[in-house]
């Protein structure tokens, strides 16, 4: 690990303790079959700080290893608690990947709203056309091209932040690993990684939200993951309809655009709600540190975005035009808040970090 990226100062004992813990794990090896972390830990003899960064970011927080361990803090002086120590290290890693905004969830949301509210107010005063005669059209609130312009800017911002995070993660962790294949390109390993992700291979039967094994996280992650993809599909179809096939919006409820959008929205709402309930019910139930606001920001935002989207649609059929536009305004605000805060959320950063870590694992383990 290069000096510049040695994110753990000597005063911070977390990394030192993690190396100690993984060294004991490497002398035991009972957990080898649980998840990708263990074959990686056991593939070498000496555990370095760089290795620990990689293991921690490869960790899915299944907690199988915690419950199988005879050396947990509650029962033994070795005080092994891998889920907790890896979570602390993940938090620290993620903070290094984007602007280091070492602040609470509330501050992040407040900060993004300070940015979003003027945008929204500016729009309304500039473009607002909702009292003009004619049927309800979403472009009356904000016309198409300004909408596309702002959305594109925010998308570009998010994608560049993710790219920066990926490059930093590669320099910080992956490049420093000295065992085996360093190639992180595509190939059989890359395809395997993609299939693992699509199938949610490492999500089944895990100790979440309580000690008992369940598919709760598998369920809500699957709903959010595919719900999001459905909404991307809906937006893409909308673009094709309007700009290629020249069918003007709003689309009727039986249109594939709306069907995909509603399905995705429902999946995100249910998945997000399930995720939030699970997150909160897991608090204080587990012998693990909870990092407040750290790991559910995006779930909350997904939930709000999806819910307001669905309500906008519902209002189109049941309420007056003012309610529709108000809900649409809230929906837009929620989307932009989500975009702005996304690079600071574990939920977004983990997409790139997990993908790269899992791909490194597959590269290392697939002949």
């Amino acid at each position, binding site marked *: 690990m290069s000096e510049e990226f040695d994110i753990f100062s000597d005063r911070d004992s977390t990394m030192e303790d993690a190396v100690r813990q993984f060294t004991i794990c490497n002398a035991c090896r*009972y957990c080898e079959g649980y998840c990708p972390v263990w074959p990686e830990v056991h593939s070498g003899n000496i555990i370095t700080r760089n290795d620990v960064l990689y293991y921690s970011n490869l960790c899915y927080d299944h907690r199988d*290893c915690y419950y199988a361990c005879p050396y947990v803090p509650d*029962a033994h002086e070795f005080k092994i608690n891998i889920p907790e120590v890896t979570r602390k290290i993940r938090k620290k890693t993620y903070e290094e990947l984007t602007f280091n905004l070492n602040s609470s969830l509330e501050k992040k949301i407040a900060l993004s709203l300070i940015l979003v509210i003027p945008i929204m107010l500016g729009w309304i005063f500039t473009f607002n056309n909702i009292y003009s005669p004619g049927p309800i059209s979403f472009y009356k609130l904000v016309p198409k091209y300004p909408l596309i312009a702002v959305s594109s800017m925010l998308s570009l911002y998010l994608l560049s932040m993710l790219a920066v995070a990926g490059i930093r993660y590669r320099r910080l962790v992956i490049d420093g690993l000295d065992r085996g294949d360093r190639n992180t390109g595509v190939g059989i390993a890359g395809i395997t990684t993609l299939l693992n992700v699509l199938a949610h291979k490492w999500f089944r039967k895990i100790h979440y939200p309580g000690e008992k094994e369940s598919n709760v996280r598998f369920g809500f992650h699957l709903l959010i993951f595919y719900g999001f993809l459905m909404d991307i599909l809906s937006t893409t179809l909308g673009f094709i309809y309007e700009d290629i096939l020249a069918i003007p919006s709003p689309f009727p409820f039986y249109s594939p655009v709306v069907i995909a959008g509603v399905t995705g929205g429902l999946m995100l709402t249910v998945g997000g709600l399930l995720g939030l309930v699970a997150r909160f019910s897991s608090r204080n139930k587990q012998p693990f540190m909870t990092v407040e606001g750290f790991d559910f920001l995006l779930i909350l935002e997904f939930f709000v975005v999806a819910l307001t989207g669905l309500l906008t649609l519902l209002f189109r059929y049941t309420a007056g035009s003012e309610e529709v536009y108000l809900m649409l305004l809230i929906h837009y605000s929620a989307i932009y808040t989500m975009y702005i805060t996304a690079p600071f959320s574990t939920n977004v950063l983990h997409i790139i970090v997990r993908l790269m870590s899992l791909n490194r694992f597959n590269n290392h383990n697939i002949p």
Partner: protein
Amino acid sequence: MDAGGYDVIVVGAGNAALCSAITASQKGKKVLVLEKAPENQRGGNSKFTRNFRIAHGEGWNGFKQEYSRDEFLTDIKKVTRGESNSELTGYVVDHSSEAVDWASSHGVRWQKALKSTLHLDRTNLFILGGGKALLNTYFQYLGKYDNCRIVYDSELVRLNVENNTFQSLTARIQGHEVEIKGDSVILGSGGFESNLNILREAWGDAIDNFIIRGTSHNTGTPMMEMIRHGAASVGEKNDGHMVGVDARSPKYDGGIVTRVDSVIFSIVVNKFARRFFDEGYDIWPKRYAISGKLIAQQPDQIAFSIFDRKSWGLFMPPLYPPIVENSLEVMADKLGLNPDELRKTVSEYNAACPEISHFDFSNPDGNGTKNIDPAKSNWARRIDEPPFYAYPLRPGLTFTYFGLKVDNHSRVIDQAGKPFNNIWAAGEIMAGNILNGGYLGGLGMTIGTLFGINAGEEALS
């Protein structure tokens, strides 16, 4: 605490005890499990186990090669003294695969042989997550039965036996002594490896320098109570599975991670900085099981495995970092050895090392020393490139072999060979009937499971 009316009382809560408790509970009997440890340390030494040894055909549970019953029997004979109960031994070998089937059907899952244990991948099936995961599965399973009660922090004080028949037992539960009656009792309470008083009879004060690798709760009271009531025993009290472990390990409960694998890569010296055995006699698994007893015979039961830069990183490192120094003199100081003596031992050893052309750690490579006693038969490589590394070693007692003699139904028998009417033993407490004075990896779990189930069934009939 309910003082009576139990159909079956199970003493202990390790693998064998839980197999008995589950079997009895499934039949609807009123079962009491007395666990000496508090809940967070439950399960005895089973939490440090990791696999089952079973005879099997090719393809069974994913095995690529057969492990025949004959081969299994031969392996047992190789490690024991030939005083084993052949009927029990034959039973275990013939039924070994049933132990795995039973565990599977009660929720235990399996994994491929661990990366460091490839020598066992033909003979042993590994528990996913190891012994504590298996125990958790069984405790969870047992939790479904209202007719079974588990009491933690409850230590057996006395077994009350009349006319070869169990009447009741006295237990200290959270500080209070209570008498509990039951129709039968199953002793699944392990050996006595954490009872320093009994070990002192066998080892003298040397025991103070031993590391007890297993739980601190195996004090052997149930076993000794049965002996007080005239039960016959098997094995010797000074017999046990003993390996060289890191001297810095905790006195109790360090488990698997305390072992040190550097021996064949090093020279091992005692407190006088003299070598005392052939460090390169054989490859790891075999060497490992001998070094403990040899260290136990050295003054103050301390030894040091010393090697140089060339060997660092070649073996699975133990839980603690090595002691690293650039000169042997400073190293000697740090280890409390006489620097001149250490220098002399290393020089003599280096002078006896051969010129090495081919070096192979996976097999005995024939690179042996010449004209030195003791010799190092393989992997004799000079120790001359700083930095120098050392691990301090002590004898680590894994478990004891001494136990209760049982009949073919796992019933405890008295010195006249007559069985006690309603007292069974299962697991480590009786494993010495099969593993007389020796050990074969993974057999303990197979024995514990099969006799645990048997005792549970027999206790009801």
